[in-house]
């Protein structure tokens, strides 16, 4: 199999080894979108999860992988908070399997090991000479300087063998870095990089070379722009680990100036934080991020040769209302912390029929809980207070859904139709605040296109935050989705049957009798209550946002997470049957079971668990016996009103938070674990594409300021920033990489060294 077509999953090399070799698995790429590889993070035994290919050369391919078990930095030196990310991405260099490649790789590992060792010994020297004011090496260079210099050489973290079908591959794990200098040269259209940036870069390379040459006795032998990568500073990092930053600054002597200014600013922010009584609050750190961001912008504006683009920089995807963004909004809403609230039980006044039923079906107990405290979850509450709904155009929605690089999901739901489908559609329009568009494609089809934007300025700024230095920006962030209503008549007989069966099977899980498996006797005879079928299409990254929004607007609607084999009776034949794609199509539906039997083979079918989200109006459940209640206009009410809805309301208020349901469905936490948006670094057009996608919803509000959430933070890290932004470049660190051709000063591996254009005269002439 061509490596480019494969996703390599590397298992924890300690727990899963055969003859001391780590075990791995390969799956064909077409099976999994990039996001789907995250499914494997389900399994605790996976250490490195491959995200994407970063590059390739003659001898190796380099992958971006997620390290699920990152090592804690041992000292302040090994981790500069400014360059750290919350996501532990590392670069994995996989050597080709032929023997001579492996030999070369072993040489490389030896060199890398000695670099790592040199770094450690310098750290030890420093630690053991605490009382000496300025410990120096034999050349009279301060040890601290050597350590700083060492940060300009690729940090080698780990190496192991990886046995694949083509043989043994040497694998080397490195810190993730940004782009190489050639791409910076290109970004400036081969017209030259501004001198201050060149100085900064060259100084970094000199520092790295000094460490390599003088301390490690290593000759790189292939120094060129392609082999110097930039590591971009995360402006918020220093603020996030202020203690580290401070330690750094204290240890830095006056003659060590690298990055001193940004540390100083970190200190001042730290001080600001100290003055504030609520240090640990997440918004505090966000605020600090904001501050540093503002500072950067300000600096750019004052900069004589700052590129025009930096001030008119397109809105980045940071305005994207992702699940994690929403989570933050809810948390900073001042109300009860969104995600914890459901765990804090308060009233036990839940109807007994709910609590009685819960133990009978795992399916039900995963979706409902007796510990619900309020009818409105914090998310729903936030929607009620802060959401603006807009109706974007068709092209806006479709370019948004197709263009964000992560794909969209489709989940269907059925609403109880006490009225005609058309009248129901009017109800939905009123509830969403968006008109539908009607078209006829094999039956009546109605489409709602919605944009939700959360207006943060609506959050009341608490008076108790006098020291809240940076005013919260008045941003909004938005997501878009689309709902389709497909008339019952346009469904094929078999699909209609499957839908009805699905409703009946779900109903049976709620019914008092639904005890032991198989007690449900099939539904060929039983019909199901009248319904109307809807499908919502949304961005994967705002799954929770969109579904929670729908639940908050459409009474009775509940998205139930279903995992294979967990129904009583089981719903599997329908959910995972012929129409599974129509019921729920979500790239993060779990496909792999966290099995203990992963042993190098491709898991067989038994190990595959699937999950789905089933959208159902609780009024569809037969045993709840919901009856229409006339609303104000005499037509059956859309709301859960009337006595006959008591049971429905009881269950409705027992819903687990949608976040926990989606978490259960995905097998990962959409807020903590969901990856950042991944964009191909080569596609320079991505940025402008995003621009047009994101702009439209935010146009509806005030011009939105970018904010950084965890995932997007990591995204900024994994995709290259605007390479013409002089400030970003000035805050980056040049790192020498690729010691694949390097050698010792006392032991050379090859006579033929250096890329032509960078070859020294003595190599050409062949000095003796």
């Amino acid at each position, binding site marked *: 199999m061509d490596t480019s077509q494969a996703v390599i999953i590397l298992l924890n090399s300690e727990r899963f080894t055969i003859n001391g070799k780590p075990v791995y698995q390969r799956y064909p790429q077409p099976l999994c979108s990039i996001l789907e590889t995250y499914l494997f993070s389900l399994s605790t035994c996976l250490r490195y999860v491959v995200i994407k290919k970063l590059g390739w050369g003659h001898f190796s391919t380099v992958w971006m992988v997620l390290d699920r078990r990152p090592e804690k930095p041992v000292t302040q030196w090994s981790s500069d908070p400014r360059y750290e990310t919350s996501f532990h991405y590392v670069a994995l260099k996989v050597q080709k399997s032929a023997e001579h490649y492996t030999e070369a790789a072993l040489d490389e590992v030896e060199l890398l090991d000695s670099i790592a060792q040199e770094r450690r010994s310098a750290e030890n020297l420093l630690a053991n000479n605490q009382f000496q004011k300025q410990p120096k090496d034999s*050349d009279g*260079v301060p040890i601290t300087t050597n350590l700083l210099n060492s940060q300009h050489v690729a940090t080698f973290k780990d190496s192991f063998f990886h046995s694949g079908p083509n043989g043994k591959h040497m694998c080397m794990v490195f810190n993730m870095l940004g782009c190489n*200098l050639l791409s*910076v*040269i290109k970004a*400036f*259209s*081969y*017209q*030259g*990089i501004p*001198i*201050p940036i*060149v*100085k*900064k*870069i*060259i*100084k970094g*390379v*000199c*520092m790295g*070379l*000094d460490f*390599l*040459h*003088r301390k490690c006795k290593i*000759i*790189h*032998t*292939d*120094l*060129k*722009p392609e082999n*110097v990568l930039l590591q971009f500073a995360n402006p918020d990092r220093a603020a996030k680990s202020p203690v580290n930053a401070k330690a750094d600054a204290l240890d830095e002597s006056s003659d060590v*100036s*690298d*990055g*001193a*200014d940004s540390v100083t600013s970190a200190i001042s922010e730290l001080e600001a934080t100290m003055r504030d009584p609520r240090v640990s609050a997440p918004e505090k750190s966000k605020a600090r991020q904001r501050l540093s961001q503002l500072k950067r912008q300000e600096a750019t504006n004052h900069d004589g040769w700052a590129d025009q683009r930096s001030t008119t920089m397109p809105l980045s995807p940071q305005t994207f209302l992702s699940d994690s963004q929403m989570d933050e909004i809810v948390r900073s809403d001042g109300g009860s912390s969104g995600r914890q609230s459901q765990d804090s039980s308060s009233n036990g006044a839940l109807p007994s029929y709910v609590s009685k039923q819960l133990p009978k079906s795992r399916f039900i107990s995963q979706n409902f809980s007796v510990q619900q405290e309020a009818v409105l979850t914090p998310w729903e509450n936030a929607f009620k207070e802060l959401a603006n709904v807009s109706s974007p155009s068709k092209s806006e929605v479709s370019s948004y859904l197709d263009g964000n690089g992560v794909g969209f999901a489709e989940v269907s739901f059925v609403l109880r139709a006490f009225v005609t489908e058309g009248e129901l559609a009017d109800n939905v329009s009123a509830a969403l605040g968006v008109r539908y568009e009607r078209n006829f494609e094999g039956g009546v089809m109605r489409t709602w296109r919605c944009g939700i934007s959360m207006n943060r300025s609506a959050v009341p700024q608490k008076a108790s935050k006098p020291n809240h230095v940076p005013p919260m920006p008045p941003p909004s962030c938005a997501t878009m989705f689309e709902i389709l209503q497909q008339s019952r008549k346009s469904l094929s007989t078999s699909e209609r049957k499957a839908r009805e069966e699905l409703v009946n099977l779900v109903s049976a899980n709620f019914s008092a009798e639904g005890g032991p498996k198989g007690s449900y006797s099939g539904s060929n005879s039983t019909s199901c209550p009248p319904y109307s079928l809807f499908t919502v299409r949304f961005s994967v990254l705002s799954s929770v946002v969109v579904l929670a929004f729908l639940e908050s607007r459409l009474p009775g609607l509940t998205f139930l997470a279903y995992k294979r084999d967990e129904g009583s009776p089981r719903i599997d034949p329908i959910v995972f049957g012929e129409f599974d794609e129509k019921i729920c199509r979500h790239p993060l539906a779990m496909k792999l079971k966290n099995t203990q039997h992963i042993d190098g083979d491709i898991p067989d079918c038994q190990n595959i668990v699937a999950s789905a989200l089933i959208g159902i109006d609780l009024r569809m459940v037969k045993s709840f016996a919901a009856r229409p209640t006339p609303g104000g206009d005499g037509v059956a009410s859309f709301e859960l009103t009337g006595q006959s809805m008591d049971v429905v309301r009881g269950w409705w208020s027992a819903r687990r938070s949608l976040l926990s349901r989606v978490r259960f469905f995905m097998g990962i936490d959409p807020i903590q674990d969901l990856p950042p948006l991944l964009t191909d670094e080569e596609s320079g057009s991505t940025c402008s594409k995003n621009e047009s996608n994101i702009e439209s919803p935010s146009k509806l509000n005030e011009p939105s300021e970018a904010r950084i959430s965890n995932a997007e933070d990591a995204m900024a890290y994994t995709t290259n920033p605007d390479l013409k932004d002089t400030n970003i470049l000035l805050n980056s660190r040049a790192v020498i990489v690729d010691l694949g051709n390097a050698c010792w*000063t*006392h*032991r*050379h591996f090859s*006579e033929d*060294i*250096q890329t*032509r*254009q*960078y*070859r*020294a*005269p*003595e*190599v*050409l*002439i*062949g*000095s*003796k």
Partner: protein
Amino acid sequence: MFVSACLSALYVPDKISSFHRYDTSSDMWSLGCMVFELLTGDLLFDPRSGDDYDRDEDHLAMFQELLGKIPKKIALGGKHSKRFFTKKGDLIHIKQLKYWPIDEVLYEKYRFPRKEAQEIAKFMLPLLEFNPKKRATALEMLSSPWLQDTT
């Protein structure tokens, strides 16, 4: 332990004697090429073979057009010297060399201000020293005036 230490001690000098063609200083030359490339976007040396000379000889000609004549001792001291140089230390095929020093190139071709061009040239020349032993080390470059106003 003792045995292996002895073995490697025997092993190392042998390696040194047969492969002592380059050293850390070779990296410094590459660095000099890189400085120019970052500043101008162009490769400092991009040799091509001609009708009666090869790429290596063109490369050596370019060196000398930019940096002056290669000292005879160095030109003739290499394993491949005879391939490129006459006994007098001139290139065999390429006779006409037009000296165009770095600061002039930066000023005339790349429109750097005269002063800036000179500063850059002053920084680059120690890196592009023909004699590897005299070439600047990374440590020395770090105290170069050109880098002093950067953090």
